[in-house]
């Protein structure tokens, strides 16, 4: 389906959904997002002033489960809870109108390229303010009442099971299923993690991919938290540990996305009502995060090796596993 046909179908869907005539202009695809297409367009709803909106669409009609509906409900709940996210407006839970499931949300202007945040002079104020903002926003995310917002459908470990043990089992299974060659460092990390799994003291909503690359920012700092498709219920410390994983520092020296210290992140989290942070538990999740990223690198290279995706980038990720293994050896005592 070309852009012109997509624009026409989108306009007729929005006209039916809004109950007034809607016109769609300037529809164009934005870069990035292999698992989901992102399109920017200008909509005129009835007699309102034109506004910029974003269409998020599955890559094809084959995605069976309704992840879009889940992500839409999470975004709705986050917006209602004061977490900075784009406001969502319409959900297309039926693939028929646009050929795949989709939703429409506000366009939030800003930058997502972390390299610019680290290097451009224009973002100096953002660099100093963002660590505190990220800690405070995370405290708010973790305070959202999952049941009250109807988010009980989000994946959760069995009652009484440690979320850490649950996540560890998931990634160990993934690793055993795909590794094309033995990885003694990953074996060492799995042993290290298995003997240190923290208890499930507090179970909350977890973003699941809380890192600098999923933050939309401007010169003042955070504008929106993006990419909620890995949201689940679990140990809130998982998000803090993932934020500190070295792969998200883009060459910066500091552990939080290359721009901040763990101490500042934890202090902001606690000051915003997130509760006390046990650095040992976050350290567990940072080691876990590196193991998980190593497994993801192997999985991405595997999609190349299996002949499914002829991508040079995926192929080269296989050779990046060594960087993550190096970091794992540094982190494990």
């Amino acid at each position, binding site marked *: 389906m070309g852009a012109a046909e997509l624009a026409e179908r989108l306009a007729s869907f929005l006209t039916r959904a809004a109950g007034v005539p809607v016109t769609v202009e300037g529809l164009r695809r934005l870069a990035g997002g292999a698992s989901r297409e992102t399109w920017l367009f200008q909509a005129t709803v009835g007699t309102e002033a034109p506004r910029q909106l974003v269409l998020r669409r599955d890559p094809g009609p084959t995605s069976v489960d309704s992840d879009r509906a889940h992500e839409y409900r999470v975004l709705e709940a986050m917006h209602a809870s004061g977490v900075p996210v784009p406001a969502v407006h319409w959900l297309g839970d039926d693939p028929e109108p646009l050929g795949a499931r989709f939703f429409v949300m506000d366009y939030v202007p800003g930058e997502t390229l972390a390299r610019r945040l680290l290097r451009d002079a224009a973002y100096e104020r953002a660099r100093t303010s963002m660590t505190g903002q990220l800690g405070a926003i995370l405290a708010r995310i973790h305070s959202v009442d999952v049941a009250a917002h109807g988010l009980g459908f989000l994946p959760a470990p069995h009652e009484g099971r440690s979320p850490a043990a649950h996540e560890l089992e998931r990634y160990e299974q993934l690793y055993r299923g795909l590794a094309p*060659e*033995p990885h*003694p460092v990953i*074996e*060492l990390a799995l042993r290290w993690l298995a*003997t240190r799994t923290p208890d499930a003291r507090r179970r909350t909503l977890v973003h699941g991919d809380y890192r600098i690359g999923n933050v939309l920012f401007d010169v003042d700092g955070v504008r929106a938290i993006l990419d909620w498709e890995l949201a689940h219920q679990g140990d809130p410390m998982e998000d803090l540990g993932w934020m500190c994983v070295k792969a998200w520092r883009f060459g910066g020296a500091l552990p939080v996305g290359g721009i901040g210290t763990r101490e500042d992140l934890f202090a902001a989290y606690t000051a915003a009502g997130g509760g006390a942070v046990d650095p040992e538990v976050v350290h567990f999740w940072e080691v876990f995060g590196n193991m998980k990223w190593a497994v993801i690198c192997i999985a991405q290279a595997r999609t190349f090796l299996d002949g499914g995706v002829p991508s*040079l980038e995926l192929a080269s990720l296989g050779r990046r596993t060594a960087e993550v*293994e190096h970091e794992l*050896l540094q982190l494990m005592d």
Partner: protein
Amino acid sequence: MQDRPTILELLAAVREFVTHQVVPVLEGGKQFHARVAANVVGIVERELRDGDEQLRAEWMRLQPLCAEEDDDDPAEEAPPEDPVVLRAAVGALNAELAARIRQGDADTGPLRAAVLAHLRATIDDKLRIANPAYLEHGR
């Protein structure tokens, strides 16, 4: 025997061409992928140059870590000459080491220290080929 340029000289020429002639005239995703391509050629150059020697050193380090204490067979002293056989032998030794770690043999004690020293040397060698800048600058 083929004439000069050698394989390494040809690969260096390809890498230089992509880096200096192709990358600057491309934009966005294509430019990014051209950079990845030049980087991959660099990996191939370094592995052709140092890969076999690294494999022999890895074999030498792995032998004592995988030897059974009550093993009556004398340990082999030199790595296989044939690079294909050597590669397969290192793969098998790594699988054995992975299994030993998995069953807890390297949780504590002298074997843990020996395994950690071996893995540090191995990962450093992998990085010398995959991304030497990572070892120098940590990125």
